[in-house]
């Protein structure tokens, strides 16, 4: 790839720009509130892990993380398992209304969450799922299922059709072909799709907050508790923020080579 003059400088500056606000959050999370409010220090002079200790020991805090993970994992499993057969169908067959259906899915990926907040609240209250991980997991399907279909369709199309035909000639039934041959072949694609479902469900707040009240409250909603009568508990807020970055940073390492392809909806 041909590079441009001064590229190291440009890239370096941009990466610093990306990392600096995150560093500041990490920095603050290890400070006492006294140090945060009274002095401007570039690193914690009096480092403390009290903020983290509080989050890991108080139930209302750590249950927020568990609640978030519950609906994120549920959503990822639902999205991938319904999207896989559909991706295969879109990739291999033409059928009545296929293009319209594909467009309809895309338009749902783009639908503003704010439009659905209130109707979802009514719907899930009516069927008794309000304030459960299921409500959030199902609500997030509206943008994650289309995304998973799009990404997986790109990967299934990369598998030569001769493989399907050979398998059927060898007497494989459709479900067996799917489980034994197709799924292993597009394993990396499934990984990428799962990563993106995980990610978009993890970063979304509006629907997650609207559909829960007490029992299934996600961490992002719990974080608003740091505002109290005594003022903001900045150190605690920063520590909670840092802990929400960690899951993303961990999974990203495994899909680093496919990130771009996934963002392009499998179509680079």
């Amino acid at each position: 790839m041909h590079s441009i003059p001064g590229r190291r400088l440009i890239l370096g500056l941009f990466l610093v720009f990306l990392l600096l606000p995150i560093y500041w959050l990490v920095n603050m999370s290890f400070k006492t509130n006294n140090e945060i409010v009274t002095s401007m220090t570039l690193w914690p002079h009096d480092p403390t892990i009290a903020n983290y200790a509080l989050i890991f020991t108080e139930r209302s805090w750590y249950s927020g993380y568990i609640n978030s993970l519950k609906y994120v994992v549920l959503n990822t499993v639902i999205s991938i398992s319904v999207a896989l057969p559909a991706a295969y169908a879109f990739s291999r067959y033409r059928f009545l209304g296929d293009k319209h259906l594909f467009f309809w899915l895309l338009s749902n990926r783009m639908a503003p969450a704010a439009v659905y907040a209130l109707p979802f609240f009514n719907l899930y209250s009516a069927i008794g799922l309000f304030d459960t991980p299921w409500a959030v997991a199902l609500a997030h399907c509206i943008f994650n299922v289309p995304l998973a279909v799009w990404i997986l369709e790109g990967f299934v199309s990369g598998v030569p059709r001769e493989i399907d035909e050979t398998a059927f000639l060898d007497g494989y039934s459709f479900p067996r072909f799917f489980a034994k041959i197709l799924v292993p072949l597009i394993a990396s694609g499934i990984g990428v799709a799962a990563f993106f479902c995980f990610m978009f469900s993890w970063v979304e707040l509006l629907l997650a907050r609207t559909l829960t009240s007490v029992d299934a409250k996600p961490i992002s909603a719990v974080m608003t508790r740091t505002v109290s009568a005594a003022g903001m508990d900045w150190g605690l807020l920063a520590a909670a923020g840092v802990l929400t970055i960690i899951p993303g940073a961990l999974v990203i390492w495994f899909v680093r080579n496919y990130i771009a392809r996934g963002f392009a909806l499998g179509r680079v």
Partner: protein
Amino acid sequence: MDKTVNQKAWLLVLPVFLVVAFSAVLPLMTVVNYSMQDTFGNNQFFWNGVAWFKELLDPSTDLGGRFLASLGRNLLFSAVILAIEVPLGIVVALSMPRQGWSVAACLVILALPLLIPWNVVGTIWQIFGRPDIGLLGYVLHALGLNYNYVSNDLDAWATVIVMDVWHWTSLVALLCYAGLKSIPDAYYQAAQIDGASRWAVFTAIQLPKMNRVLLIAVLLRFMDSFMIYTEPFVVTGGGPGNSTTFVSIELVKIALGQFDLGKAAALSLVYNLIIIIVCWVFYTVMTNAGVERRVKKGVA
């Protein structure tokens, strides 16, 4: 590779159809229902026809004024962030190292902001921009600038825009990088033999090859900035005044703040309609690009 016609494929698509229809069609019908009615509480509804829609599109009414103002702000916001993020993303993609461990390191750092929950993105910038406890606000004040995103409209806008650039430029950069990587080395060798300038290589080889991913990048960024809610809500709460109140923020204010269901529903439908139209343009342009590619391949 031609696809075979097989109506049984619907069986494979059915689960997706049911799941998405449950989440999309049912709630949307509720919205349509509300948009035609008025309520005075107690769950009593009255038929209201298209009155809400008329009010919505008439700037002299309260609802219409608020909607059109937030729509204007939102379009301006989308235009500004596209104008910054697209060129910057291209430059960053062109600056990526060619090989070695630094590629993986750069990719991971670039992707990091994309994986942070949106309210935490807001929190990070809320803290970072504060003059008393944030590095950015502190430095700007030390330089003698009277920067305050809570009380000054322009500073609030600047903060929200810089935050979005921080949050999403990586997406554009990653997409462009993927596009650049798909260019075979032979193209560059040919350009070198021809003595092409750096600029000529960019306009004649790299830009055309990035066309497709850039299209996806522009439309994803437009869509997501057009429905932005959480980040500006956390940082500015839509203020000072209404200066950073975008369409989604206005909508949530009307729907969940005032419980004005009819007005909120009418706004939702118009909002959704705009999204669907843009989406349709996106889809048409993209599928046409796919067809063109296939035709070119067939000729070659």
